[in-house]
């Protein structure tokens, strides 16, 4: 398994495949700092396209909306997701069906979720706006937060809860002084994941934002702008969105080694 030839083949595949990923990403980031803004020539380093973003009130509005949606949906989904994870773990005997119900949203395609929520809000006659995006993102994020906290709970030593009771603590004291502090890294990791998912999410936000431009978010803004081709502003915006995601998820992973979905 460790013969040099096999390993060299592996490296080659790695190289080719990731060239397809990292070259375009690097080009995108590079161009966002290119004075001239054109892919044809490097005319010098500049942050002028970032400056241009700051001068664009549509984009500032979209960034503000994204932040509002992300913050509210993160706080709500973290609270609810943590409670659910702990609740499910305690009532493990209730078994499979509860878990299936909770994790199903991770399986349901985003576009189907988007249509379903849109129909729901229409049927109920709810006027759509940032609040409906927040509710939708809570529904969308909840399962992910719950999954991160549950992953941590799998290695949680429940005997410390019994030890706390044995030493004279009430249920509430045990919750505040033992359970929550021990779970805190996973809770924060879950929150950071929820934040990133919300910032990056396009299709659910697109469907549940309602008509007009007042509730537009950053991915929607990028989507709208791209009809006119990939401009330097889009590159700058994409670089910012990517940076936020990468930083938040790197933090999340650090806090919660092995508990990040898919790792």
């Amino acid at each position: 398994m460790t013969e040099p030839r096999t390993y060299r083949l592996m490296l080659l595949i790695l190289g080719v495949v990731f060239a397809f990923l990292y070259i375009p990403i690097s080009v995108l980031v590079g161009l966002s700092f290119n004075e001239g803004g054109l892919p044809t020539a490097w005319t010098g380093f500049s942050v002028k396209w970032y400056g241009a973003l700051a001068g664009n009130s549509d984009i500032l509005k979209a960034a503000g909306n994204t932040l509002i949606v992300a913050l509210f949906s993160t706080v709500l989904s973290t609270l609810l997701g943590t409670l659910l994870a702990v609740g499910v773990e305690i009532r493990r005997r209730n078994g499979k069906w509860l878990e299936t119900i909770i994790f199903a949203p991770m399986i349901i395609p985003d576009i189907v979720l988007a249509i379903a929520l849109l129909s729901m809000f229409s049927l109920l006659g709810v006027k759509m706006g940032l609040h409906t995006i927040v509710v939708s993102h809570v529904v969308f994020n909840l399962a992910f937060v719950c999954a991160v906290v549950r992953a941590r709970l799998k290695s949680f030593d429940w005997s410390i809860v019994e030890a706390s009771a044995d030493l004279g603590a009430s249920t509430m004291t045990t919750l505040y002084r033992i359970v929550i502090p021990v779970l805190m890294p996973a809770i924060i990791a879950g929150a950071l994941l929820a934040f990133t998912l919300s910032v990056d999410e396009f299709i659910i936000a697109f469907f549940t934002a309602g008509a007009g431009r007042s509730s537009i978010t950053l991915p929607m803004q990028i989507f709208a702008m791209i009809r006119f081709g990939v401009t330097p502003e889009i590159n700058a915006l994409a670089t910012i969105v990517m940076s936020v995601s990468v930083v938040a998820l790197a933090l999340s992973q650090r806090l919660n080694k092995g508990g990040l979905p898919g790792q």
Partner: protein
Amino acid sequence: MTQAFLSIQNVEKYFATVRAVAGVSLDIRENEFFALLGASGSGKTTLLRMLAGFEDISGGDILIEGTSIAKLPPNQRPVNLMFQSYALFPHMTVAQNIAYGLEMEKLPKNEVTARVADILKVIQLGHLAGRKPDQLSGGQRQRVALARALVKRPKVLLLDEPLGALDKKLRSEMQLELKRLQHQFGITFIMVTHDQEEALVMADRIAIMKDGALLQVGPPKEIYELPRSRFAADFIGVMNFLPVTANSGAFQARDGSPITATHVNDAVGTGAAVAAVRPERLSIGEGGENRLSGTVSAIAYHGLDLLLHITTELSDTPVIARMTADVADRHRPETGQPIALSWSARDTHIFPA
């Protein structure tokens, strides 16, 4: 009669329809070091968890100094448990772990600090007060768990396989250390263990549990030397069993030779039975009332002692005889050699087959 310190009265436990503990009654004395000894599934841990309050009892009662504690939740019982996994709080330092139980009693801060410092001195971990549990060795963690429970000055300390997670050398050191601490604190200890040697070395009295019931209760010497059932004889230490035929109080081995025994179990009737004798009670040559001869089939050298495996007509499995090093020096046993052993009637037990 004076009342027992801790009285377990006909306690039962059912999990759904499965009976885990079957009407156990047991009186434990103040300052006693008591061991519940049994294989996994014998109900010993369930009984311990009922004493701690983590399982409610399906029937019977538990009293401490005459007062029932059966209905109290775990945080209101004058009883503390040292968990097998130690269950130290990973986000707290050693000192914070130990202080936690005292803070729950709402003791003044300076008293908490003083008592934590005192017990840290006793367990000789004062210099590690600021460490987190994952920075401690297994033996240190064990002592912190013990301190955390002892600092509450419980009436009864429960210990769930207290030495199970330690390695061999450390375990034999901690056996005597735990016993010393129990004397020093004057607290009743109830220990659950599956390790018969641990129970023999540490406990004042041992209860052997099987299938949720008590099989035999007594001091270690009595348990080892006067087992009251074939199971107990086999479970503790090594025991040779020879099939015999019983006939109005006399016993015959397979080859027709008589076996005399001081300890005949009440359940032995007429017909098939077994005679039991420990390897260390067999000696070379004549000297005891009972005799056997055979061939040495294997010699297991343990340094300290030899164990001779002897094939004999008296049973299908080899008879095991212990030979101490000085005897071995004189006799120099070899595989294939014929050998004659004898043992006395007072070391012989008869059980139903």
